[in-house]
């Protein structure tokens, strides 16, 4: 069909429509939006977030260790900062992230291999209980309540 015989709006109709996504942010962030999700979707989002936290900490840890190259005085002054109670709270958060990522990873490994698929909800809550108890114990220990 020639251009002169095209119906009004033909060009617009040929354009692809938008792909709607969940979440108010960038289109690719729909997985992060917890609204309307079940425990599986929220666990997936938290698994990704904690994975990023752990990777960030890994590089931070390597950077901090490199202070040893500067000398013992730099390391000692740094230790005085990171052993403060306020800073130790970050360690509790880190332990919580590692525990969730690890325990949920075990659940995902089992379910993703076709094992205990129908028990995935029980696995999720078992991991949650174990992780919560471990985080509480670690928090009390790190913050000095058990020492």
């Amino acid at each position: 069909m020639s251009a002169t015989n095209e119906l009004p709006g033909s060009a617009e109709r040929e354009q692809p429509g938008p792909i709607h996504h969940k979440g108010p942010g960038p289109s690719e962030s729909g997985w992060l939006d917890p609204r309307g999700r079940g425990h599986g979707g929220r666990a997936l989002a938290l698994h990704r977030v904690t994975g990023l936290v752990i990777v960030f900490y890994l590089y931070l840890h390597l950077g901090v260790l490199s202070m040893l190259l500067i000398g013992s005085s730099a390391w000692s002054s740094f230790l005085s900062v990171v052993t403060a109670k306020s800073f130790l709270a970050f360690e509790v958060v880190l332990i919580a992230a590692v525990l969730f990522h690890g325990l949920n990873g075990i659940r995902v490994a089992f379910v993703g291999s076709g094992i205990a698929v129908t028990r995935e909800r029980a696995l999720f809550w078992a991991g949650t209980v174990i992780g919560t108890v471990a985080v509480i114990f670690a928090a009390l220990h790190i913050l000095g309540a058990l020492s």
Partner: protein
Amino acid sequence: MIEEKPSPGGAVMTQTGQDETRRFRVYRYKRGDGDEHFDEFDVPVGPHTTVLDALRWIKQHKDPSLALRFSCLHASCGTCGMQVDGREALGCVCSVQDHGPEIRVEPLANLPVLTDLVVEMNGFFARFPHEHPIIRSSGAPAEGENGKVHLESGHEVTLDLPSPVPPLHHHPLHHDHRAATPAVDFVRLEDCIECGLCLSACPVAATSHDYVGPAALAAAERLLEEPRGVKREDVLAWASRPEGVWRCHVGLECTRACPAEAIPAERIMALRRELTFGGPDDEEGKR
């Protein structure tokens, strides 16, 4: 960016038996007619009003340009899939009483929007394996000997049914209609109504547009159960592609969203189990 527009609706109309109103925030998009936005409508509702009822009321009384897709009105056709307050649902069986005073209605996610609440489903169906059976009788196949059943295609297969196979009940209007037995015995992919809710709910499909998605993978697993001439290794090779079964991150939102209890997530995991642990015996269709 989605912008808010003032409500085009005016006075609330009341009908017999509909003594309350709900505010619907409805996603709107028309090609060549500006950006996506939400319109608000106040709709009279009753105790049994569904979201689809409300949308049809809007179309009839407030805005005839509202485009929506529906057909059977009883959750069989799968055409009225949408997001209601961020969760996937079939509008025809989604009661407004299960939602608050303001209800947000959006099209299915992860599929291109054609207009308003209508999405392009070609991309959804194109994800299915090419060997996917086209249409088959929903009646139970004729019973053969030794647990085997004869399919209309002429193949003979062994189905994973409890033994002994229940007798067939011959109803004058429904040939080969199996007598009432526990429904769990007949969980099959024929339950899938191909509504696309699982693809919309899938968090991985939000990230990766080439992921084939839960419904297509569940269909592939169904093929393994009843190959009907399709080579099992072809199905497994199709499923094990990078955009296939290993792309699933076990969010399990597909099974949660499925309105037909086709349990797509469990079928994806069964495919993985087959790919991971499947031995030589599986080549003959044994499970």
